[in-house]
């Protein structure tokens, strides 16, 4: 029987401005999680009433801990950013992970903003021969955990919107350039909807399979309440609403009907 977990906070680190990394001690999650899955965190009280979904950023099996990296947006993440000790009440690991397979010898991950971090776990778990990370950030100060990405992938390229660090470019442009050089076996992406849509289009145009990690407002986080709908293709001309928490958050890009999935969170 699955359980709601009450786990110890091992560490809380402010990475920049409004982005925090929390390390949580959890044998269960460390043993059972897979890249792309998320935890549903109770941030506290009736003020942040619902749990908040946050992707797993990395797992340290040896030490039985996992990391989440989150950005302070509203009440919930605000409260979470104040918990430097004590316990967190989580449901985890949840959702469908990225597909990792020996077939994929060369992989590219494309991350944007806060969406870059779950890709670290993927890079660390993949046994691909060639791993490339293309990461887009707003500005220099928001580029964090770069070293961990460099340790996890052979090639790391960083773009910032304002050119204060790395290339001044959209991360999608990095992807286009990369593909010109060499076609990876798969592209994984996580970030703003508009970015992922573009990534998916580039991958599809080049015949590269692509997995995307979708976001949607959630209720239960496990597939029972049906609120976290994501429009997906169903057969030839039909469509339906899949659910990000259970059928996702990771989907094949070709399954997504992008018209309603872009940025409606």
């Amino acid at each position: 029987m699955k359980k709601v977990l009450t786990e110890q906070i091992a560490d809380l680190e402010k990475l920049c401005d409004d982005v925090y990394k929390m390390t949580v001690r959890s044998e269960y999650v460390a043993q059972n999680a897979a890249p792309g899955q998320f935890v549903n965190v109770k941030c506290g009280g009736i003020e942040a009433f619902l749990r908040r979904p946050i992707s797993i950023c990395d797992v340290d099996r040896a030490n039985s801990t996992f990391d989440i990296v989150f950005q302070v947006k509203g009440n919930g993440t605000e409260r979470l950013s104040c918990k430097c000790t004590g316990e967190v009440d989580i449901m985890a690991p949840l959702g469908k992970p990225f597909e990792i397979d020996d077939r994929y010898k060369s992989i590219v991950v494309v991350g944007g903003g806060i969406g870059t971090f779950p890709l670290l776990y993927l890079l660390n778990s993949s046994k691909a021969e060639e791993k490339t990370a293309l990461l887009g950030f707003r500005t220099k100060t928001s580029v964090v955990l770069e070293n961990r990405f460099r340790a996890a992938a052979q090639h790391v390229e960083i773009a910032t919107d304002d050119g204060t660090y790395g290339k001044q470019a959209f991360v999608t442009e990095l992807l286009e350039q990369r593909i010109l050089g060499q076609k990876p076996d798969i592209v994984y992406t996580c970030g703003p909807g508009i970015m992922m849509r573009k990534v998916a289009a580039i991958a599809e145009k080049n015949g590269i399979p692509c997995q995307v990690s979708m976001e949607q407002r959630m209720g239960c986080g496990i597939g029972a309440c049906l609120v976290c709908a994501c429009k997906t293709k169903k057969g030839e001309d039909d469509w339906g609403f899949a659910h990000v928490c259970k059928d996702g958050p990771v989907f094949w890009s070709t399954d997504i009907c992008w018209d309603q999935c872009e940025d409606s969170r």
Partner: protein
Amino acid sequence: MSNNIDLSVNIAGISFKNPVIMASGTYGFGHEYSEYIDLNTLGGISVKGLTLKERKGNPPPRIAETPAGILNSVGLQNPGVEVFKKHDLPFLKQFDTRVIANIAGNTIEEYCEMAEILGDSEIDAIELNVSCPNVKAGGLAFGTDPLLIEEITSAVKRYCKQPLIVKLSPNVGDIKSMARAAEAAGADCVSLINTILGMAIDIHRKKPVLANNFGGLSGPAVKPVAVRMVYEAAHAVKIPVIGMGGIACGDDAVEFLLAGAAAVMVGTANFINPAVPLDIISGLKEYMKKYRYSNLKDITGKLELN
């Protein structure tokens, strides 16, 4: 003595092992929560609202958080009553718990047809969700007019092989007349409250948070309104009442029982804590132990006004 606590309750001829029933739309068809809690411990499960044909539901976002509550606008996404009967009901019937089919339609005929389809199934009761727009009456919800409630209830009752629960909408001026209409037309039970119509606005996008613009409010925020309506309904009719709206602990459940509910339903609270039904059951037991009650009859309707 204090060990002899009997939580069972008989509603319209169906016996529930305890009065804690999962509210429709919050528990799917039981699959997901069965991984977190033994469904055999539950009094019952009212399944996700069913329609005659599959419904895709509303576009996302379908949920907005509000102070001590949520707004939802799922829009009755479901595979249709036939698929439910074939694929989901058998799963639920593995468990020793009551299964209530919550049904919704756009026309009285649709409701009747669903009741008929479910007639030879193993469901224990039918719950009529009358909060749906009545397409023939220009979109007015069935549940906001006593005459429509009477019409739909008596029509469905004719097709109904199982006990019929009518689930009332709180978006009315006078809940008593709605409960009385259901009773007069042959309902075996009324359940309430369904969600209260609300809206949340994203002030930066200058648009409602929900793609559907409006949604239904549930969770602790609605509890005082729900308790009041359950009290009013329970004192307006003789048939049993199932109370719900914001229940999140045993004490909350006791409030509804005292107000006159024979059983309670629990919805939103499951999202935050899948073990909440067990907490509610044990909270209820503790309360009964404390006051040496052995039976729910010692609580239901025992509120004294000041």
